[in-house]
């Protein structure tokens, strides 16, 4: 059976779309058939991140109105034939689609793909309901900020109410140096509030922004960055592997342990 996973957060700008693109691509590279679905109607940008914008002909709306078949709307990635995108409509309001319709389309996609990843919009209104309607599991994203964590907590409650019990937490844009100076919530702080299993921590990394602008997911880059490794690790954990979490503070720890050793040797 295919896995239908919604990527959601409550708050906007925390990295849902970035994450959907990278996880989708990484899964496809591991030889799974993957469809990524943009459920952010009105503000679509999953196509941009994947560099597929100029190949969109139809969207989910045309599928629903019967103007085209599902296969016609799905955009195949030219770099990675295992990956397909179902684009959202740009010009319609988010209320143009109901959760029932969304479920119908996603269930149809699930028949021929191993993974369906749904990129959800910000908020907890209709767009959110559309995105979660057919999901079996969820990746809850947050950044280590109070407001983002509060919204993620809200979303976890709503997912539970929608009978989505399988949830994993992704903490994005962590800045270890700031955490060490007590200026940013730590992974532990976030986990303590949200109390769902952690599946990945992604460092704040300017390479993410560069890859966003190029329409080229990080996980494709030949000399892979720390953030890229973090995405790959999430995918491996999704598939049941036990992968230790990256030590994002390694550089600092080295320095500290070195200093400590220095002092100890003096005594």
């Amino acid at each position, binding site marked *: 059976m295919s896995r239908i996973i919604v990527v959601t957060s409550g708050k906007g700008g925390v990295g849902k779309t970035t994450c959907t693109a990278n996880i989708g691509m990484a899964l496809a590279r591991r030889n799974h058939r993957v469809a990524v679905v943009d459920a952010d109607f009105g503000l679509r940008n999953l196509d941009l991140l994947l560099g597929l914008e100029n190949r969109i002909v139809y969207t989910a709306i045309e599928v629903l109105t019967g103007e085209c078949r599902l296969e016609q709307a799905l955009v195949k990635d030219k770099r990675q034939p295992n990956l397909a995108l179902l684009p959202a409509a740009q010009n319609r309001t988010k209320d143009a689609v109901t959760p029932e319709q969304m479920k119908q389309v996603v269930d149809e996609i699930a028949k021929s793909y191993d993974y369906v990843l749904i990129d959800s919009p910000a908020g907890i209104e209709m767009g959110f309901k559309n995105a979660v309607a057919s999901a079996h599991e969820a990746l809850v994203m947050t950044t280590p900020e109070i407001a983002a964590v*509060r*919204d993620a*907590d*809200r979303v*976890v409650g709503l997912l*539970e*109410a929608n*009978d989505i019990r399988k949830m994993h937490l992704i903490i994005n844009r962590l800045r270890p140096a700031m955490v060490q100076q007590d200026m940013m919530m730590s992974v532990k702080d976030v986990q*303590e*509030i949200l109390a769902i299993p952690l599946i990945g921590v992604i460092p704040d990394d300017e390479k993410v922004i560069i890859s966003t602008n190029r329409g080229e997911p990080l996980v494709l880059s030949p000399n892979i960055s720390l953030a890229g490794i973090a995405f790959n690790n999430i995918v491996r954990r999704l598939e049941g592997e036990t992968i230790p979490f990256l030590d994002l503070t390694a550089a600092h720890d080295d320095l500290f342990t070195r200093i400590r050793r220095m002092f100890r040797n003096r005594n």
Partner: protein
Amino acid sequence: MTSDSSAPASVSAISPVTADTTAHLQVRFKTESGRLLLLLPPEDATASGWADVLQQLKHRLNSGDRFWQPYTAVHLVARDRLLDVRQLQTIADTLTPYQLQLKRVYTSRRQTAIAAVTIGYSVEQHVPIAHLNPPTEAGQALADPLYLQTTVRSGVEIRHPGTVVILGDVNPGSSVVADGDVIIWGTLRGVAQAGAAGNSRSLIMALRMEPTQIRIATQVARAPETPPTQYYPEVAYVSSEGIRIARASEFSKARLLPQPT
């Protein structure tokens, strides 16, 4: 919150809470001579739209998981709510995974009664007034304690006309409002209100007190600007100078042991 009961928490008075009990009733389970009653809030209660009712029901079921006995018959007390066939079916379906079976429906609405009969539940159209409409005079007894094993998450509000016990954390952005005490076997980070109907002898207890705000009867206290370096189980109570917080160990000693003279 400070652990030192001699250090004042920031205190101010608020306008007395209106003791309008029906206005904030939520979905609630109650056992009565071996039967499990499912009480729905009346139609005019705040936050009692169908979506709210369903969400509260799921939340209560989820948070009481360990206590439900298989094949318990559930008697639905629908009060004056209009429920159609689809809604009654949804309630029954929501109970099923917990092995609870909807058997009987109490209602004061003819349409609800007809809908219930249509899908095969026994119906009583005359509500047993005694345990459904709480007496309006003063001196009203509290409801049985509400025990929930759950994380109370942002956006959720738990209200109960009695004592509330939460086995889990109460997160920022959520609130627990009780006419009796609030006992949190976990961390309190949200808002807690005890004695919401006016009883200033009510208490708020938490293994770890980091509340956004606490209220007891008409008193309000906020957390101090600088968080303490260490946390202990604490009890908040109303003293002559407003809300005080004491370490749980010292609070019970002070109450139970004779004071040294």
